[in-house]
């Protein structure tokens, strides 16, 4: 298990993390979401020893991460970084060696990974001569080349074209299947939804939601009932107890049900207005979940009042 436990971090008066915690099981992929400045990068940098937590710790296999354990983590920083004038092959070999591989194994691994990520022909070129997309591949190869036990990747998909995204996703899934826990942050929620076994959403330094994508979807707050009743008078649903109208336009109604409210009662009320052409629970997308949980509480309350008014 890779465990992030109760991380706190302040820069001066600015409290960046206020008790961030989540766990990632070996062989699973964890999508780390949150708006800009929520603290994702700080959390990952604490794991890599690049920032120090005021409180809390990150553990791998039950032991707090130390320098030796970090050597077995593949890391991709948010700000990409490679030696611009160093050749691709030599650079990968160097990083493999820094992670503790001997010279021969490092050279082999560098060759293998540059080949697998489609960089075979660029091995002898300095990194600065490569396109941005290819530099990104080298960056990923640098994270994977030492056969890490854990992968921590900060925004690995940003700046990639769709083909690059697929190649990276495939590489990550492969690592996962080999039993490596993978944590990555991303703003591309569709991607997170597609790839991740579990998701954590960070807002204002706190984890506001964690769980599998399924679990998050089942959360009441994220679920809406869509009922289409063409002949109904406006405000037909407001009278049903436990129902809050999210939106209503020409009979196309989105409803949110309070806990314990029976959806069949809503159906009965709908039928009383006439024809019902559509009645279904709509699964919230991760984007909607994200908006829901990340929104500022004050703003959110204002929105609710507006809708109710």
């Amino acid at each position, binding site marked *: 298990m890779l465990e992030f436990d109760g991380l706190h971090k302040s820069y001066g008066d600015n409290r960046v993390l206020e008790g961030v915690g989540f766990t990632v099981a*070996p062989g699973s992929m964890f999508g780390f979401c949150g708006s800009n400045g929520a603290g994702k990068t700080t959390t990952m940098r604490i794991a*890599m*020893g*690049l*920032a*120090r937590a005021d409180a809390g710790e990150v553990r791998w296999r039950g032991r707090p991460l130390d*320098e*030796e354990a*970090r*050597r*077995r*983590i593949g*890391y991709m*920083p948010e*700000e*990409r*970084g*490679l*030696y*611009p*004038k*160093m050749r691709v092959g*030599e650079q990968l070999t*160097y*990083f493999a*060696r*820094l*992670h*503790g*591989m*001997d010279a021969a*194994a490092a050279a082999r*691994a560098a060759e293998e990974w540059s080949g697998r990520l489609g960089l075979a022909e660029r091995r002898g070129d300095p990194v600065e001569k490569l396109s941005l997309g290819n530099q990104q591949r080298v960056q990923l190869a*640098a994270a994977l080349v*030492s*056969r*890490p*036990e854990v992968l921590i990747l900060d925004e690995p998909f940003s700046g990639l074209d769709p083909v690059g995204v697929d190649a990276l996703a495939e590489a990550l899934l492969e*690592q996962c299947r*080999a*039993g*490596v826990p993978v944590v990555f942050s991303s703003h591309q929620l569709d991607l997170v939804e597609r790839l991740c076994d579990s998701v954590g959403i960070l807002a204002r330094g706190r984890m506001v939601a964690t769980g599998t994508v399924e679990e998050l979807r089942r959360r009441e707050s994220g679920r809406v009932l869509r009922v289409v009743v063409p002949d109904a008078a406006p405000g037909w649903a407001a009278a049903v107890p436990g129902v809050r109208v999210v939106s209503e336009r020409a009979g196309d109604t989105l409803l949110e049900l309070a806990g314990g409210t029976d959806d069949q009662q809503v159906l009965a009320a709908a039928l009383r207005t006439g024809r019902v052409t559509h009645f279904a629970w709509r699964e919230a997308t991760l984007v909607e979940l994200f908006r829901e949980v990340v929104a500022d509480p004050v703003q959110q309350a204002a929105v609710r009042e507006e809708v109710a008014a």
Partner: protein
Amino acid sequence: MSAPSSTSPLSSGQLVRLVAGREISSRIRDKTFIASSVLMIVLILGVLVFQVVVNSGEDTSRIGVVGDPGQVGTALEAQGEALDVDVEVVRFDTEDAARTAVEDEEVDGALVGSSGDPELVVADPDTTLEAVVSGAVGSVALGDALAQAGVDPSDLPQLTVTALDGDSAADTQRTVVAVVGVVVLYSLLILFAQFVAQGVVEEKSSRVVELLLATMKPWQLLAGKILGLGVLGLGQIAVIAAIGIGGALAFDVVDLPGELIGTVLWLLFWFVLGYALFASLFAVAASLVSRQEDLGSVLTPASLVLVAGFIVAVQAASDPDGTLAIVTSYVPGLSPMVMPVRQAAGDVALWEVGVAVALMLVAIALVVRLGGRVYSGALLRTGGKTKLREALKAGEA
């Protein structure tokens, strides 16, 4: 359960060696480095060739003698030595042959006539040649006269020479070597300290430092960088020294190879100390900025110390016992350039060198300790210039 791990734990020493190895292998292919190496070697060869040309300017005087040179030949050579002229005695069978040789400029002059009535035939009047020949003829005549009178020349009073100012010719030579050496030392100090600074900023500006620090501590990165480039710098100065010494011996430019080698070894020693101090200073200063463009401003203070040391050292060559030279030869940062000049030019007691070395070591220790903290604190702060105090504070944490 997890991917097979083919990695093994690394010691600090291994990490430092890895970093140093990368520095050497990437710098040795760097165009600036290659160009500077070639330039230095050309410079040293140039100095050597210059010395050889200057020395060969005082060419040998060839003096023709008719018949067996005998006593006159010996006297001519002895006289030449006294007047600092190389004399080669050429034998001719007849007076006519000697005269023809002078006309053909095969010899500079010819001594003809009898010993009672000697005549010097020259193509152009040459006072040095006249002095040599008349001195030689005179001393032969004097020897003959004394022998006839029954006086043994060795009974005559001999002049004993006592030099109060030591061996001044050798001193000058050592000072020249020291000044040339200090020029090389200063250039290499500036060059390699700059390399260290550029390397630090390159890692910061390319953000690769974040990946590096995920696998090692800041001091390991700094130590590897300074050691790697230091080995390269020491190698370069050693090659230059070897070429200089080898060339000087081969072309017979110096009289006292032992003194020359001593001076060069001291220069190498002071290079190591100077490099340790300035490389650390430059690295720490460089860690405060994130762009190569900002490097100049933060490096200025340390560079000024280097330039000052160089100027004082050159001045010290002409006045090695002056107060300025003596005082500055103890000041850390200036001592690596001033002390070797003083050591070469004058008598410096071993304890004086010891004090200068000790002060230098204290300064290096301080820079490494405080600077290491600044470096760790500033390394991960990108964007703009980090203030020294902020970096110190961050480094403490």
